[in-house]
């Protein structure tokens, strides 16, 4: 597969963004950072999508009267990516709103704490005793 060097760089960059974003999503603990990681991943995939229509040296696919249509880049991905960006922004906004709500409810923006509190809440709502660690002392430690 022979690709022009520029495209290799571009594709590599896009895929890297995607991977960085996903890795951040897995490894991060701060909810805001997770949302940011999501944004990075989305940027990567959007870039990938827009690249799929890219041809080096081509024009923007705008038909103007009087211009000779030379090679043009594929307009469909551009249309698609617009949609994807809009959706992505919407979802991220929603995510941030939820982060705020979560902070108000649980007073935390840490995923680990959120998970623990969430599961405690679920167990409590179901009327289950909390799952204690096997290593936890049975009673309060003496002061």
């Amino acid at each position: 597969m022979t690709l022009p060097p520029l495209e290799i760089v571009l594709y590599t960059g896009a895929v890297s963004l995607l991977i960085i974003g996903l890795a951040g999503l897995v490894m991060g603990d701060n909810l805001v950072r997770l949302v940011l990681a999501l944004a990075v991943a989305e940027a990567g995939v959007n870039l990938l999508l827009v690249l799929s229509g890219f041809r080096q040296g081509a024009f923007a696919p705008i038909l103007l009267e009087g211009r000779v249509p030379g090679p043009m880049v594929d307009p469909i991905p551009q249309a698609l990516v617009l949609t994807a960006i809009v959706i992505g922004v919407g979802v991220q906004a929603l995510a941030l709103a939820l982060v705020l709500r979560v902070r108000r409810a649980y007073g935390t923006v840490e995923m680990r704490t959120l998970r623990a509190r969430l599961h405690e809440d679920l167990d409590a709502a179901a009327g289950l005793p909390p799952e204690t660690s096997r290593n936890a002392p049975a009673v309060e430690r003496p002061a």
Partner: protein
Amino acid sequence: MNFVVLAVALPLLAGFLTPALGRSSRALAQWLGWGTLAVCIGVLWVAWARLDGGTVAIAIGGFRPPLGIVFYLDAVALLFGLAVPLMALLLWPREGTPQQFALTLVLTASATGLALSGDIFNLYVFYELTAAASFGLIAGRGTGAAQGAALRYLLLSAAGSVLLLAGITIVYLRTGTLNLAHLATLAPERLQDPVGLAAFALMLIGLGVKGELFPVNGWVPEVYGSVSGRLAGLLAGLVSKLAVLVVVRILVLIFPQPEAAQLMLVLGMLGIVAGELAAWRARDLRRQFAFSSIGQLGIVFVAFSVPGEAGIVAGLAVALHHLLVKPALFLLAERWGGSIEGLRGAGRGHWLASGLFILFALSLVGLPPLPGFWAKLLTVMGLMGLGTGLAWLGALTVMAATVVEAAYLFRTLSVLLAREAGYTSPGPHRGLDLVTASLAGLVLVGSVFALHPLGDGLKAMAAQAADVQGYIRTVLGDRAVARRGQREDRISEAHPASRGSDRPMGRADRAYGWPAGSPTRGARS
């Protein structure tokens, strides 16, 4: 037939109107929602009647496919399309706010779109819209748990969407089109290779988040544990099935290679094992049902992974059965939610609810002649008909899961019906919940008496859904079918032994050059 578009457009429109309307009158907003849904049902019903077993493609906005986006209507699409407003109506958030009405309507619109759309990017858009609507609905309960669960779900789902979009991008890079029918004509030569398979894997996992595919279903117990029974029923019963439907469409039309189905089979199997076993250990009823739903969706994936008509029949049967049973069970769990041990004796005195529970449990476990049995039988038959070791393992998994399922469902039942002195009942079920669940029960029992026509109907439906040529012909016309036929011939001549296996397309790729996408190529070829 263009009026079918109304089924998507109307609820969307109503959804945007409702919050504004709701500010002045909540009742009015509610009635608007109900009316819209009723109209949707009517529209789809008329379409069903007019279609009469045929297939139709509707070009939106007058652009002809493959350039324009299309709706593809066949029996399966319409059946699920019809199920959407129907279920939305039955599981309507009665005590909710106008915002929730709006979100439910948006969910309806996008889910209907998922069922009907014949364009892969359109599917993505509807998928995202569905996701956004469901996040809103989940968080809308207002409790901390619901919001936390919604956020965790959102992060997972958004990551899945990224993968889905990446998969779509690969498909587009390879073929230069997003129309499913057009993809179906091009797939045999452009996507029959590892890269195509990778695209499928990405799309499967991406869509799998909503479809409760193992292991990207971590949200399921949290969300179903924290939302109302009605919403859980809607998500578990309906939305998950539509995600699966999209996967199946893609699988059948674009990725006929056995590896694709294998991937789905393996993940489905793992889902069955994980879901049923986790349900066995679950200590509260709602999460037990949530895990059980993961297991059931695993069976759906496993069933659909059987290639050809047999798989689709089986998958449809299992999916429809679950669509009917699980929401009803979640409705029953509304009053009986909470720790299972705490329910000792709760079922005594509530004989209708207990009876329904027993009925659903029996059907889930597969007591003949209840429909659940036939669904399970079809799945196992499809798998064993394949004769491969993996398929045998799949059949074994389905059957072993049945044992586990019986163990925990009836353990729960025995607790519910235990004779316990001094138990204070949590009060009767809400009338509406009970009526809705009874309705599901009635349909379940009624279908026992209509097994023969139902079976025939399912078979015809599956035949239609499995008919790739028919899909192409409907959307693109006869010539495209001939072209696909030629391509397949050419490929099988070039690689007579290994069609659809290892990597037959390596050379053909290079011959076409890369990137393949161009705005005009798709239309011309």
